[in-house]
């Protein structure tokens, strides 16, 4: 698992992918948070980081599928998957290794935004007038959300050997998981089932975490969705044996 993880991470760092992902994320989020008047903290007048946490998921929705789209699709197209699957490593080691490398790259992209927290902290009047618990909860939520998006990306990468198709499937699934369920729940046909439907989506749990209340139920939601998607990925990878 470690070898796959290191190999994939080296692959990101040796190509332009890692640098482009990190710089695009930071530039985009930086512009939204500090420059564009519609969303800028400076114009808003309140010391919070709402912009980062509400728009970050939408940036991830495109960036993470771009990171993960090649992971299995490329291996299948070039045939190296055969090489990998005939080495003495298990399917799980391959999947987890690839998954973690993608997730770590996402975490690397988020990490520098801690500077924003410090800036907003300083800008508060008096300094430090910011909902620190909310920010910590939001960061945990954002990283876990990145975890779900990465697992969706890996799954989409496995179902096709075409990277573009993989990217589009992943963006669509990320969107459905993020806000699709909440939006569907808003349709007035579900009755009491609407709450359940809303709870299936990421947004419900993400919002709960961003209030600074780190509830194990929300954490459990993230962990179980990631595990379920990876399990599904494992089944598809194992289906070559059927």
């Amino acid at each position, binding site marked *: 698992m470690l*070898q*796959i993880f290191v*190999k994939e991470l*080296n*692959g990101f760092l*040796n*190509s332009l992918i890692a640098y482009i992902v990190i710089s695009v994320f930071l530039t985009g989020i930086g512009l939204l948070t500090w420059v564009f008047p519609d969303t800028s903290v400076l114009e808003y007048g309140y010391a919070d980081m709402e912009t980062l946490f509400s728009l970050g998921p939408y940036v991830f929705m495109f960036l993470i599928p771009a990171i993960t789209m090649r992971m299995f699709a490329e291996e299948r197209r*070039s*045939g*190296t998957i*055969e*090489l990998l*699957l*005939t*080495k*003495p*490593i*298990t399917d799980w080691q391959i999947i987890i290794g690839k998954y973690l490398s993608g997730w770590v790259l996402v975490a690397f992209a988020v990490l520098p935004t801690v500077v924003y927290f410090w800036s907003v902290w300083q800008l508060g009047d008096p300094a430090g007038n910011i909902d620190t618990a909310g920010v910590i909860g939001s960061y945990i939520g954002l990283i876990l959300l990145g975890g779900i998006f990465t697992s969706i990306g890996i799954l989409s990468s496995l179902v096709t050997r075409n990277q573009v198709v993989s990217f589009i499937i992943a963006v669509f699934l990320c969107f459905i998981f993020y806000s699709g369920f909440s939006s569907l729940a808003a349709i007035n046909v579900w009755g009491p089932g609407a709450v359940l439907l809303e709870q299936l989506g990421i947004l419900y749990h993400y919002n709960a975490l961003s209030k600074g209340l780190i509830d194990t139920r929300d954490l459990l939601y993230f962990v179980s969705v990631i595990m379920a998607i990876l399990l599904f990925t494992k089944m598809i990878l194992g289906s*070559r*044996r*059927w």
Partner: protein
Amino acid sequence: MSILIKDLVKCFGTQNAIDSVSFEVKEGEIVGFLGPNGAGKSTTMKIATCYLTPTSGKVKINGLDVTERPEEVKKLIGYLPEHNPLYLDMYVREYLTFSGKVHGLRGIGLTARVDEMIRLCGLTKEQNKKLEALSKGYRQRVGLAQALIHDPKVLILDEPTTGLDPNQIIEIRNLIRSASKDKTVLFSSHIMQEVQALCDRVVVINNGKLVANDQIESLKLEENKAVIIKVEFSDAPAREGLSVIDGINKVEDMGKGIFRVEADANSDVRPAIFKYASDNDLTLVGMQQEEASMESVFHELTKPGQN
């Protein structure tokens, strides 16, 4: 360390890619695996390397079943897949190190092994290049180096010389020969000279079925039941004149005074042909007895419509 394949069947949908194939590769043996394209060679090898699972039948590597204990089997095998897939964005040394690590090599042992593979496969000059910058011949060497990195006892090579130029073919062949001492080797090919040069024994399959499993020499003998003689006259005589000679079974007119004569293997008809020529005042300009080559054996065994 042996490879045992017993009643192997693999279906893709309704099509039988492999239909009840059984053979064995004994310890230390080099066996050539022949067959036309699409005969099921690669599928058999993919099953033996745990990439695919058989529909029915057994494949055992050193007594270990590939479906029951794939993790142990994978450790024993060095595999070079068809078309030699490589991570083209990696460097030679990096790639070999990665392959070694996946096989559980670590530290000094790993470095020593990578160095040895680079030396053995003649990659010293190329070791700091990216794989995509290498020529096809060198990529093939890297493919072999990665298959050999953990010093496997069983080597499975799927068409290791396809697409190489004649010099590279000889280099790769020498490499296989030197690397395969004290190893059990199964390799597929459709280059007959290669099989003759390397193998103790050949296994031939056609349309998913086993058609031959024998020493090269005995296969050739079997083919030699009839002798083919090419006879050339300066001016063309009638075909019928030749066919009456005792021992000649069939005469084929190839045009321009050349005849292809098929005769019994146990009687030499050449003196009779010569006598026929001198009796009829014909000028005999050439007479050549054809040796059954591996090519004709292959051709004969895998004729369409057979089995």
